[in-house]
């Protein structure tokens, strides 16, 4: 799960990380009032769940109230990577002496929470990682001790050089680690972390992602969720025990298991078709899931054919067939469907489907070819 910058800043503040004052605004009017109140150089920042806001023109500096108004007019309603900007953050602009990057992530290789830090802040850290990997410090935190004060101080000192500044930065690092652990984050980064000419250290932009598997124990984080339209569909599917992701093609796919679902999409592409979605109905034998899945698939108006690919393990093919028959009684559709059933109780499932007249095929590749053919009619 992702959150907006303004929400990340709020979490940072709650943990005592210094962040410049800001006001969240939904209208030009609100921006005008906020700029007047802050009464200083401000930055107007689009709040959308996408990276590259600055490059897209979604971040603007305003020297006075008039400039703030004109920036707000430009940014509110603008489109960044397919997302409409509905709100902006008006924040005090800070004087920047130098920019740094600090962040924590879960590292698969060391199987630990890893601190990443760089004196090359402000830009995308992926760029630095690609072009100058030696400029990034990577420190795997020992899960049993946590990030120790002296470790944070050593790393901060190697970035800042000055011990007074390093102590301020080290305190931010330990706070960021604490909030990372306590909120079940998968990413918590401050970019940039800045040094002001007065020697203060401040977080002026933040990004946080959270572990979906841990949201059950993070009610405060879950309450921050602001899904866009596609995500709402995905969340609704998740609540029904399905994993759904909408794509751009025209062949709807219903598969059991994530790996097989990906392989099914790949196969459709391989034979010259285009998948409309990723949909994993999971490993249960509940016919209701099949009905829900068909509903979701067919709600996508781009879908011209449906490919059902089931390899029964725990999932029983006869249950899938029963769910499908029921689904087709409820949902009247003329979208053609091709079914492939293998594994547990496949014969029983295929026998049930015989009555429906749905085309059934023996293998995954035949199913893909047939679905593509049907989608072109």
């Amino acid at each position, binding site marked *: 799960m992702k959150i907006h910058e303004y929400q990340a800043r709020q979490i940072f503040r709650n943990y005592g990380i210094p962040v410049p004052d800001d006001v969240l605004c939904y209208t030009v009017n609100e921006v005008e009032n906020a700029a007047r109140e802050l009464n200083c150089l401000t930055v107007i920042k689009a709040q959308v769940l996408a990276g590259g806001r600055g490059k897209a023109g979604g971040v603007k500096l305003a020297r006075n109230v008039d400039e703030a108004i004109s920036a707000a007019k430009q940014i509110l309603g603008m489109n960044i990577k397919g997302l409409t900007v509905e709100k902006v953050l008006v924040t005090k602009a800070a004087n920047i002496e130098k920019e740094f990057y600090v962040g924590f992530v*879960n590292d*698969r*290789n060391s*199987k*630990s*929470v890893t601190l990443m830090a760089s004196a090359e802040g402000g830009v995308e850290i*992926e760029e630095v990682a690609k072009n100058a990997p030696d400029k990034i410090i990577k420190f795997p935190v*020992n*899960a*049993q001790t946590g990030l120790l004060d002296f470790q944070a101080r050593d790393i901060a000192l190697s970035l800042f050089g000055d011990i007074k500044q390093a102590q301020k930065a080290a305190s931010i690092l330990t706070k960021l680690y604490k909030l990372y*652990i306590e909120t*079940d984050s*998968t990413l918590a980064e401050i970019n940039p972390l800045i040094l002001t000419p007065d020697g203060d250290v401040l977080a002026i932009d933040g990004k946080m992602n959270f*572990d*979906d*598997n*841990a949201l*059950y*124990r993070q009610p405060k984080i879950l309450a921050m969720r602001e899904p866009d339209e596609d995500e709402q569909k995905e969340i609704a599917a998740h609540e029904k025990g399905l*994993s759904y*992701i909408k*794509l751009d093609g025209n062949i709807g796919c219903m*598969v*059991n*298991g*994530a*790996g*097989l*679902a*990906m*392989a099914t*999409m*790949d*196969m*459709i*592409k*391989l034979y010259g078709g285009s*998948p409309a979605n*990723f949909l*994993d109905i999971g*490993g249960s034998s509940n016919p209701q899931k099949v009905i829900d899945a068909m509903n979701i698939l067919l709600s996508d108006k781009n879908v011209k054919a449906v490919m059902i690919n089931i*390899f*029964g*393990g*725990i*999932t029983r093919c006869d249950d899938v067939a029963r769910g499908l028959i029921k689904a087709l009684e409820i949902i009247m559709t003329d979208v053609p469907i091709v079914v492939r059933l*293998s*594994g*547990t109780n496949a014969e029983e499932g295929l026998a049930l489907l015989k009555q429906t007249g749905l085309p059934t095929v023996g*293998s*995954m*590749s035949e199913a893909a070819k047939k679905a593509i053919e049907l989608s072109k009619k």
Partner: protein
Amino acid sequence: MSILVNKDTKLVVQGITGRDGKFHTGRMKAYGTNVVAGVSPGKEGETVEGVPVFNSVENAVKATEANTSIIFVPAAFAADAILEASYAGIKLVIAISEGVPVLDMIKVTPILKQNGTMLIGPNCPGLITPGQSLVGILPAMIFKEGPIGFISRSGTLTYEVVNQLTLNDFGQTTCVGIGGDPVAGLYFIDLLERFENDPDTKAVVLIGEIGGDAEEQAARFIAEKMTKPVVAFIAGQTAPPGKRMGHAGAIISSGSGTATEKIVAFNAAGVPVAKEPAEIPELLRKKLEEVK
């Protein structure tokens, strides 16, 4: 021969009184797996599918000398169950539970290392040594004894590919589903090493997917350390970046973890990558002929 599980496996089922635990205990027993005990706090003295239930793994180990554990408890309690098995002296733990928080696994990892416990999973289908022992939820009927080692990050895709292998007369030594989570127990390299050392395994099939760089590491390991042929398949070749494809680990982030990178790495290591699952038996046949 085989790896990790065989006729000597004595299995304890954690969460045996739950719906899945009970169902799969019956299936594993029917396959011939030596299921010696179950654990469900508060239910000691009961039996499930003829298997005695204990309050703790420690009690189960004392009474039955169980050496392997399989975990079916809900995700929120999985980390605790893994550690319980580890502290009770179990050397191999298979965690089927799906949806375990990553930070739970990060906390568990160093303790397992200290205790010398091997973990497979979480969020995995388990493993099988055909003809000897099934420790997991895999559909037994598609497997067959033979010379192929099999490792996969996915569940049902494993069934798809194993089915192709069996139909083409390639039986298996051991098939391991390592699971789709970003932080998991034994991974490709750990298992490739075991298959390399297993005299009965003649070749290995590896099923990877998008996300992370475990496949790239496997490719390096194969190039440097392996004498036996390996054939691979990568799922998610058409997945868009930034979208998590069901598995918590299957995500292409900021240009890394793509199928293309993995395929390039495998090809550079002399590992052919199948375009679709049905192509795997043919690639395997060619590779085995080269070795001869």
